[in-house]
């Protein structure tokens, strides 16, 4: 076996330019497949997250609120439509175990970040919250109180330091871990009281936003009661509460999902096409290589190489080349994804998909699959020509007939 492998390697070395071209062609194909698959899986799992990743099953928001383009998936796009803070508490819906109210106000010139950055100020109720505090990675060693703020992972400020919001001093109480949900990571969180105290400083087109009034909220993050289905809960909420719209993971994403699905199907089709045409190319190439080496194969047979050894040698040669192509392709794919990471993430977040990469081990699995697939292409492409040549009498091969 080692003998065949070394013969195969030497054969690859004979036509270096041709071998390199083969490796490059396979690298391009497997690079596309690897990159496509990684992006697909990443986007897929990114879509599965959003507010559901934060721990909520659905959101309840004012009926007219825009939710289709919300990048947050945490709350709604900031809007003047509001709900009563005690809406759920009053109704007591059996299929809902928790409904955490949130206020969200997108403000400018707040003094946070650079001058023109808009910042989401998010009010929550620490008593019934289940989407903010579980993400705390560090906090001061005391309870949260008025004037405290919690910063998303993307904001980097020392704990306990002072943060001025519209000139008013606040204390950085805690910092959240990376959630992959854009607004969550850039948000500034505080209790309702703290947020309402800022009402005087925030100027909308017609005074301070309605959501900053006491008792009004932007929406609720809803957690289902054990055993309740989203359908039951949605029905219960809609039939009990007026002026409310229920957003589940699916409906928020459906528009984006369809767009992306088309894109991903395109990538998938491209991948299949790449796979098939590369296999075809390898097959054509190896038919030519087998023809070119007919005499040598005949000689090998004459001096005692078995058919299996002949086929093994040619297939090994192909698998080494395409396997190397696969590895190179994965390397290229990683490079390309690194180079374009920023613009890709930016683009996806813009269309509302909070992008998170597939985790390391799963990328390794995809990479391994791409390399294995490239090797299979080599094996499949070379198997038939090699098998056909191996069937012939050695004398026919060395004579170079047909």
């Amino acid at each position: 076996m080692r003998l065949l492998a070394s013969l195969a390697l030497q054969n690859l070395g004979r036509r270096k330019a041709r071998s390199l071209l083969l490796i490059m062609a396979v690298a391009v194909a497997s690079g596309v497949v690897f990159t496509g698959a990684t992006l697909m899986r990443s986007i897929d799992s990114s879509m599965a997250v959003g507010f559901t990743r934060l721990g909520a099953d659905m959101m309840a928001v004012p009926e007219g609120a825009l939710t289709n383009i919300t990048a947050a998936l945490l709350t709604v796009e900031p809007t003047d439509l509001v709900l009563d803070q005690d809406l759920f508490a009053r109704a007591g819906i059996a299929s809902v175990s928790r409904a955490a109210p949130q206020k969200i106000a997108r403000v400018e010139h707040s003094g946070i970040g650079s001058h023109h950055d808009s910042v989401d100020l998010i009010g929550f109720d620490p008593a019934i919250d289940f989407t903010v505090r579980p993400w705390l990675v560090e906090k001061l060693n005391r309870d949260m109180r008025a004037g405290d703020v919690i910063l998303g992972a993307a904001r980097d400020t020392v704990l306990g330091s002072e943060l001025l919001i519209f000139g008013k001093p606040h204390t950085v109480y805690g910092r959240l871990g990376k959630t992959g949900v854009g607004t969550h990571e850039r948000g500034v969180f505080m209790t309702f009281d703290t947020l309402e105290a800022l009402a005087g400083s925030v100027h909308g087109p017609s005074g301070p936003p309605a959501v900053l009034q006491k008792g009004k909220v932007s929406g609720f993050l809803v957690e289902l009661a054990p055993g309740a289905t989203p359908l039951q809960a949605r029905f219960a909420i809609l039939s009990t509460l007026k002026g409310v719209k229920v957003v589940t993971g699916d409906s928020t994403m459906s528009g984006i999902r369809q767009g992306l699905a088309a894109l991903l199907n395109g990538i998938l089709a491209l991948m299949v096409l790449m796979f098939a045409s590369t296999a075809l190319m390898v097959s054509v190439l190896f038919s030519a290589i087998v023809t070119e080496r007919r005499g040598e194969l005949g000689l090998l047979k004459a001096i005692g190489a078995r058919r299996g050894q002949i086929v093994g040698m040619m297939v090994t040669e192909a698998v080494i080349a395409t396997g190397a192509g696969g590895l190179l392709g994965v390397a290229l794919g990683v490079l390309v994804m690194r180079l374009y990471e920023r613009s890709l993430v930016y683009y996806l977040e813009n269309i509302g998909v909070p992008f998170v990469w597939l985790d390391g081990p799963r990328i390794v699995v995809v990479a391994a699959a791409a390399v294995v697939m490239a090797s299979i292409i080599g094996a499949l492409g070379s198997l038939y020509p090699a098998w056909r040549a191996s069937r012939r009498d050695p004398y026919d091969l060395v004579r170079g007939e047909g």
Partner: protein
Amino acid sequence: MLSCRGLRKDYVTERGAVAAVAGIDLEIAAGRYAAIIGRSGSGKSSLMAMIGGLSRPSQGQVTVDGTDIWSLSENALAAFRNKRIGYVFQFASLLPTLRLVDNVALPAMLGGGGRSSATYARATALLGQMGLGEHLDAYPSEVSAGEQRRAVIARALINEPALILADEPTSDLDEQTEIEIMDELLAVNRERGTTLVLVTHNLALAEQAEQIVHIAHGMIVP
């Protein structure tokens, strides 16, 4: 040692069937030196290929050392070629990517020996006997045609075959080299007792043979 019964080879071509070998019966005793002569196209190479297990006969039987070789399975025939028959071809038949010593060791390695030091010791010794001790590590393209042919003889001997088949092994060499190569082959036949079947155009060479087989139109003529 070697016997052919009713051996035929028909090639199917666009212009109909060609009977390259048209019914040959032949006996060659063990240890003999037999020469096959005949005009170009008379069917000598086709006969040799069938004797050597390289080309399946259209009809008839070939028995080498008591084995009906064409009744063997593919793999058994490959093993038989490997162990019992050595070939010296008409054309350059060394693998260009291997050094001479690797080429010579190759049949032993293919036969299941693997890359053993004993194999390489034997290959080295054989190349030494052929006067190629200096060129063990040379690639075929780096030595002369005559030296290549000697390496092929060394390769043919590595598994100590019972039969050596040489189809015009010297036709492309100059006269002096031809004599040297033939001396090597005849020495193998004499000293090792290996049966030698040689196809040649050179009547002087044929006349030294213990048995002369004259072929015309695919048949033996007296």
